[in-house]
Each structure stands twice: as C-alpha cells, then as structure tokens.
C-alpha cells in the first residue's frame, strides 16, 4: 500500500505578527518549527501500515525552505521519499488546491494527515483535498485496518464518546487524531543521516497552477490580537500556602 503523508511545519514561537498590506494574509516570524503534532501521528500510522502491509511512504509538506527540516525528520522516522511543495499560503482553499495538484502527480492508495494544525487551527485542508479529488474520506480517525479487497476499515470519533466504524474503498484520505499510534523516538544519528537523503521539490509551475489559484478570495483580515476576555478571571497571588488557602475557600463556597 502506497501512502502519502501530508505534514505541516508549524512554529512553536511567533513574533512580529501583522496583517499584510492587502489584508489577505497574516505575516509573522515563526521560530522553533516542528512537525505539526497530529501530522506526526499520521506518519506513525503510515509506518505501522507499512510494517504490516509493505509499500512506500512519501512525506510531503507545503512551505518555504524551512519546511525541509520536518521532511528530513520524516525520512529519519522511516518515510521512503520526501517532497517539498514550494508555496506558502495559510488559506485553506489555496493550500488544498496546491496539495491536490501535488497529489495528482503521485501514486498513492492512501493519504494520511492530521486533523488540525496548531498554527491556523482550521482543520480544513485534509477533507477539502479529498473533496477536490473526489475520494472517500474520514476525519478524527483513531484506528485503521487495511483489508484485502482494496479497502480500509477505520474507526473515527463522532464526539461525546461515540464512534463510527467506516469502510472506505481506496484511494482514500484519512485525517488522524493524536494518539492513534505511540510516537517513536528517533535517535540523533538517524536524524543526521537522514539529512544526506535527497528531498524532491515541486514549484507551483511544476504543478501547473495559475497565479489566481494562489490568491485568497472573498475575505480579508481586519485584526489580529490576543483574545478579548469575555469575563474577567480573578488571578490569585501570594505564596503557595496563601494561594492554597484562598483556593480552598473558593472551592468550599462553591459546593
């Protein structure tokens, strides 16, 4: 089974946040880039499926040159190939259009990705890509079982402790939840070795995309700032003992 894992490089620290002059995007300096957490779980699931069913894993990521780091990480974890799509956009419609154009160039039975990235928190690109490709999809997947007849059986969350068991005919796309497989540790030596491996790249021209497909349409950013507090939180200060006494009082009066 050939699997493509879509992963995103997300910043752990963001500075110099501002809205672009045309209002179409938010600009910032992102530091401490790492693989988005649920995308790493998607990669782990791909590795588990490969161990039991064989096939090739291709990790892809859309982003600037800094996204290379997470692709080397994916190779160190056991991906067979890695490809960077040289394009930057945080717009889910643009991102899914670009990723679909890349997927059309690849040979896959299954596309795995996470549910949501920790920077834009949209959770759209996976399902939007499946919808554009007109392939079956499932979101919040917590279990995958490959079956003989070119299908997968997946278990997905419906919320509130309810689950659905769904059978999907391949090719299909799954957005996996955190915790689907245990995360494996990658020894530093393997991470260093992985940096010797080639990483492919697609430009937007390679993907046959037109400039207007890369433009955010229909909305503009008018503000970006820390959340307004809808109610005031009462902050307690003092020594741990003083805080504990105050908290205990608050707890007792609430009962």
């Amino acid at each position, binding site marked *: 089974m050939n699997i493509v894992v879509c992963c995103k490089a997300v910043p752990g620290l963001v500075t110099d946040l501002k809205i672009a002059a045309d209002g179409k995007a938010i600009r910032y300096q992102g530091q401490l880039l790492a693989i988005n957490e649920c995308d790493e779980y998607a990669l782990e699931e791909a590795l588990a499926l490969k161990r039991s069913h064989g096939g090739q894993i291709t990790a892809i990521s859309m982003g600037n040159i800094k996204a290379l780091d997470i692709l080397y990480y994916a190779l160190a974890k056991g991906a067979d190939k890695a490809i960077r799509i040289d394009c930057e956009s945080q717009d889910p419609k643009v991102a899914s259009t670009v990723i679909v154009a890349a997927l059309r160039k690849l040979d896959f039975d299954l596309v795995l990705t996470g549910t949501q990235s920790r920077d834009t928190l949209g959770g759209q690109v996976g399902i939007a890509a499946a919808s554009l490709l007109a392939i079956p999809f499932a*979101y919040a997947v917590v279990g995958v079982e490959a079956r003989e007849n070119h299908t997968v059986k997946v278990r997905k969350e419906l919320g509130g402790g309810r689950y659905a068991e769904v059978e999907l005919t391949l090719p299909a796309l799954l957005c996996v939840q955190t915790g689907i497989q245990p995360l494996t540790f990658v020894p530093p030596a393997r991470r260093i070795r992985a940096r010797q491996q080639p990483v492919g790249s697609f430009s937007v021209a390679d993907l046959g995309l037109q400039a207007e497909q890369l433009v955010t349409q229909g909305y503009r950013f008018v503000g970006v700032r820390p*959340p307004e507090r809808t109610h005031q939180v009462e902050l307690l200060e003092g020594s741990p003992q003083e805080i504990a006494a105050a908290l205990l009082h608050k707890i007792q009066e609430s009962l």
Partner: protein
Amino acid sequence: MPRDILVLVEHSAGKIDSLSSQLLAIGQRLAAEMRVDLVAAAVGHRMENVVEDLQGHATDRILVVDDPALPLASADVQAHVFAEVARQIDPRLVLIGYSLVGMELTPAIANKLGMNALTNCVNIELRDGAVTVTRPLFDGTMHAHIALDETATAVVALQKGSVPATAPSAKQAVVQWIAIDVNSIPSRSRVLEITEEPKGDVDLAKAEIIVAVGRGIGDKEKIHFTAELAEALGGTLACSRPVVDVGWLPRERQVGASGKSVAPKVYVACGISGAIQHLTGMRDSKRIIAINKDPNAPIFQVAHIGVVGDLFEIVPALTKAAQKAQTR
C-alpha cells in the same frame, strides 16, 4: 444575489443539540441585523420531533430531508445532501457547528458549494456593515478578525461557546420537505456501525468536583500529585486528551470534544492549556479554577479563578490544606 442565513442542524433522539440551538440564536440575531431570512436545515429519518423542536427557534423556514438511509449515511453522502439543500435557497451564509461531525462535513460542503469555509470561529457579527468572524490562531493565544467581502458567501463553523439561549418564539416557520434519493448518491465509503465508549468505573458526569490534569504535568510519575488533590477534595480525577494519548491515564477519564462533557460545581484544571477540544467539554462548569504557568494559556479565557504559577508548588499546598480541613 445570495442573501439568507442557513443553519445546518445536528440532532439526536428527536432533539436538536445544544450547539445547534446556539447557532440558531446567533443566526436569529444576525438575520435581524442583516434583514434577511433565517432558515434551518435538518436531515435524518423520522424527523417529526426534530421539526417540532425547531419550531420555537424563530426561523422563517425549515428545510427537512427525511430518508431511512440518512442516519447511517457516510460523510460524503451527508455533505452531498446538505449541499443540495443549501442550493435550494442559495444562502449568503451557512452556519454549522464546529463539532467533530461539523469538522468533517464543513470543508466538503464548502467545496461542493464553491464557498470559502471559515472554521473554529468563536464569534460572528456585523461590524461596520461587514460580516466579521473571530477565530483563534497559534494554539488560541491570538484571535484573528476576518471580514467577508461585501458579496462573498461562506460556510462558517462556530465553536460551542457561551451564547445565551433565546426565549422560545411563537413564530411558526414554513416547513419544506425536500425529497432526495439518498441511496442513489454514489459513495465509496459506508458506515458499518456506530458504537459507544463502554462505560467504565469512572462517572465524570456525576462528579461535583473534578480535578483535571493536562500535558503540563510533564510526566506519568507526577500524575499522583493531582490524584492526591482529587482525593483530598473528595473529587474525581480527569484529564485532557494529550494525557490519554501518551497513556498516562485511561480514555474514560478524558474530558473534551472526543471524551466526556462535564459541568461540575468545581473544575480544577492543572497544567491544561485549554485547547478548544478540551474547553468544549468543560466550559459549562460552575466554577473553573485554572493553574498554569503560561499567563497566555487559553484556559484563562474560561476560568473564573486563575493561578499563574508552578503547579508542583500550588497543587501539593492545596492538597495539604484540604487534608488539614478534613481532619479538623
């Protein structure tokens, strides 16, 4: 020109769910300001009770698809049906809940309708004449305010929040039953079965005090600090998703969108940053106490009482104080 507001409703056991009620309240306010109609759409089977429940939510019209294949229809079929219903009224805005079901359907519905989707929104309002949504970025530490272009349409997926329910309305909406042959919609996936998490020994829903531990605890060996606090307070130990994902506590103790929804008298969040998936499951708690070292953690947006500090200092001190109070 597209103009009306369409709310896509989730329901179970003949009742619309609380997030959908909230969407209808928001839709009602927005439709009045924009001077357009509020339309609700619900799909399923044996829909009479859902329709009855929807009357009273001040909608102008109710669109219903009733088909025996719908309750177990796959996600792509459901998206197809909702898109088909939306096309009947060509709405300006489609409001949907940012529930797990909504998260799965929204991008597919938006794609079928050729609309943008704005997801995970905490607010939608008219601001300077423009439909403006607020949504989190960067783990919820920032909020982006996004204005729709004057004629742009969008599917807007809204989080569960604290919108006051509206008073029941006497307005009788026109009900329109739409016939869609669900079985003829092509799909390459099928739902085999719906299951429930087996009931464990822990009943979080009945607990009056919950002490919840998050990733901030850092280590399985340190969970006991919070377990001891729960015991000293006569409460129940719970946790956020990351703690379950790494195997520090079992799934039955998980609070949040995927796990249990709780509303105890006291909810003590220790080292929980407050991802929306967690807040969804506990924000209705009567008194929320948050202990976190990051003053910008989103948990402080829902907390009534906050302590910015080291939980390994605060939690043992609170445990000791509670134990002392018990023996007195």
